């Protein structure tokens, strides 16, 4: 046994960003380097953790050796490992991007508030990462609440970072939504504790039985998470908050933060409330997803501004995640549907980060992000436009991207259980996504006589967008191992007959 095999990697993935949060606050000059080093460090610790989980199955770790019920436990299974990998990889790309973005020498008037942005971005982002990793590793529902709040505070502060009127107002709305969502969730936690006298996920798993207490807990927690996860029709706060933030922040909010609420919902639904949920509730959530796909896409088709288009695309794509609930109803296709939605989360995270970063580059170079006036942008920024296009391919779900594999599995689950309505919805959603992505790429091919003067965009900012978009596409060719890994510690209700 080497140190690598036995190290408490899951602890490191929280401790590293947490200490980096303090360090970046103290040593502002070195902040970008500390940030990049921390994200690289979290890649290493996630790799170590992944090796442990692949080798010996789900892990559990008692912080400080206290154990249940008073201590805090951490646990890692296939799902949490994949989520950690996602936050680590996205984290590296965004950090590299942000290091350049917040220190760019030829800052425009638009980014006059540079100094305080640079000062606060890094600590907030590190705390955000710590909260996120803690959330993915939480073993009890109260710890989920605390990390959800930490994440929310960091996210709101980041959203307000731009300091302009629209950003502050959007952040304020985001904060109200986030706090009320968390309180709903906490109320659910309290009810579950009242009924079963434990908050531990594993201990609760076998105990929760249908009844008024379980139903009200499910209703409260689900509503809280749906509003924090910006699920249609509770998405109203997301587009302004995401679109008005500085580019790296938009990417983090859209790719990672909204996924946290969904992650909790997924865990609760399949691990705790498996015996409580009814087909009607599952269908109801699916219908919300359908609404999100159609409404979000329709809005994306009408946005005049690029970043708003990308933000509405997030609303639409989050709708797909909701489809897991109705599609997993059928025992034969449950595991497929569940894997599909987790893989969808990964693919969307890569694609959406790449798309926001590319959109940010475009907006930076052009000095605005009005879609109608983007003619000739390709000549100036071929790499960013390529990144946008590749990310778009994954969002649309065209092969061989990660989005394609996820949609393939969703379709397989839908058709396998004879749910043709959902299958049709998935395809229609893809075509709508194609329509809004092409709205932008359309301008990549128009010719302009006189190239307008454009701001220079640093190479690292272009390449970090491109690298992530390539990853989003390549995810389609390396899905076999992650999907295999997901089965480690998959919720019990997934082990349906006929599945291996």
């Amino acid at each position, binding site marked *: 046994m080497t140190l690598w095999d036995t190290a408490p990697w899951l602890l490191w993935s929280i401790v590293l960003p947490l200490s980096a949060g303090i360090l970046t606050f103290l040593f502002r000059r070195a902040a970008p380097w500390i940030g990049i080093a921390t994200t690289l460090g979290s890649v290493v610790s996630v790799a170590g953790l992944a090796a442990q989980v692949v080798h010996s199955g789900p892990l559990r770790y008692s912080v400080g050796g206290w154990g249940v*019920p*008073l201590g805090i436990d951490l646990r890692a299974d296939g799902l949490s490992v994949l989520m950690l990998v996602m936050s680590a990889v996205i984290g590296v790309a965004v950090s590299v991007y942000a290091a350049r973005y917040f220190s760019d020498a030829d800052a425009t008037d638009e980014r006059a508030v540079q100094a305080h942005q640079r000062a606060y971005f890094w600590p907030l982002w590190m705390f955000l990462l710590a909260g996120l990793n803690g959330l993915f590793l939480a073993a009890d529902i*109260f710890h989920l609440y*605390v990390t959800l*709040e930490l994440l929310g*505070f960091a996210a*709101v*502060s980041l959203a*307000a970072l731009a*300091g*302009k*009127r*629209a950003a*502050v*107002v*959007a*952040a*304020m*709305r985001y*904060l*109200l939504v986030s*706090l*009320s969502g968390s*309180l709903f969730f*906490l*109320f659910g*936690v*309290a009810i579950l*504790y*009242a009924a079963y*006298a434990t*908050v531990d996920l594993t201990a609760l798993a076998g105990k929760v039985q249908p009844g008024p207490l379980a139903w009200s807990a499910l209703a409260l927690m689900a509503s809280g998470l749906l509003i924090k996860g910006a699920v249609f029709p509770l998405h109203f706060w997301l*587009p*302004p908050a995401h*679109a*008005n933030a500085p580019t790296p922040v938009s990417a983090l909010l859209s790719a990672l933060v909204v996924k946290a609420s969904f992650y909790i919902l997924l865990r609760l639904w399949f691990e705790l409330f498996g015996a409580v949920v009814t087909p009607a509730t599952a269908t109801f959530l699916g219908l919300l997803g359908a609404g999100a796909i159609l409404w979000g896409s329709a809005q994306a088709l009408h946005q*005049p*501004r690029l970043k*708003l288009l990308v933000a509405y695309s997030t609303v639409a794509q989050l709708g797909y995640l909701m489809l897991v609930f109705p599609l997993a109803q059928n025992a034969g296709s449950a595991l497929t549907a569940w894997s599909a939605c987790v893989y969808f989360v990964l693919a969307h995270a890569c694609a959406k980060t790449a798309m926001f970063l590319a959109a940010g580059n475009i907006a930076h170079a052009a000095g*605005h992000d009005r879609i109608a006036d983007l003619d000739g942008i390709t000549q100036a920024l071929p790499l960013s436009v390529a990144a946008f296009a590749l990310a778009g391919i994954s969002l649309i779900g065209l092969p061989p991207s990660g989005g394609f594999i996820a949609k393939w599995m969703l379709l397989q689950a839908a058709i396998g259980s004879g749910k043709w309505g959902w299958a049709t919805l998935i395809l229609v959603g893809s075509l709508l996504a194609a329509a809004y992505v092409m709205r932008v790429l359309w301008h990549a091919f128009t010719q302009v006589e006189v190239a307008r003067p454009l701001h220079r965009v640093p190479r690292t900012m272009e390449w970090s967008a491109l690298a992530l978009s390539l990853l989003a596409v390549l995810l389609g060719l390396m899905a076999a191992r992650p999907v295999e890994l997901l089965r480690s510690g998959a919720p019990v209700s997934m082990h349906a007959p006929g599945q291996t």
Partner: protein
Amino acid sequence: MTLEPYLLYALAGVGLFAIGLYALIARTHLLRKILALNVMGTGVFLFLIAIAYRSEPVADPVPQAMVLTGIVVSVCATGLALALAHRVQTTTGRMVLAENDESGA
């Protein structure tokens, strides 16, 4: 059937939560919204304390620990909310959230 005292407190907690939620939605002034959130939070805390006293004579320590943590979180949240509300007032001149601010660049 007699109403156990702890149940009375628990129901009062639910009531506070409901009142706070109503105010959060119905009031437009930001300070009132922040206060409403605090009322909601207090409702949840009351509920938790109530269920801790189910097992008299010795109270269950776990909900109490949760409430302590919850209060810390709540104080932080209020602080952040007040700071943001102040920024809203200085940038927009008003203490309310305008309906239509998506398009502002």
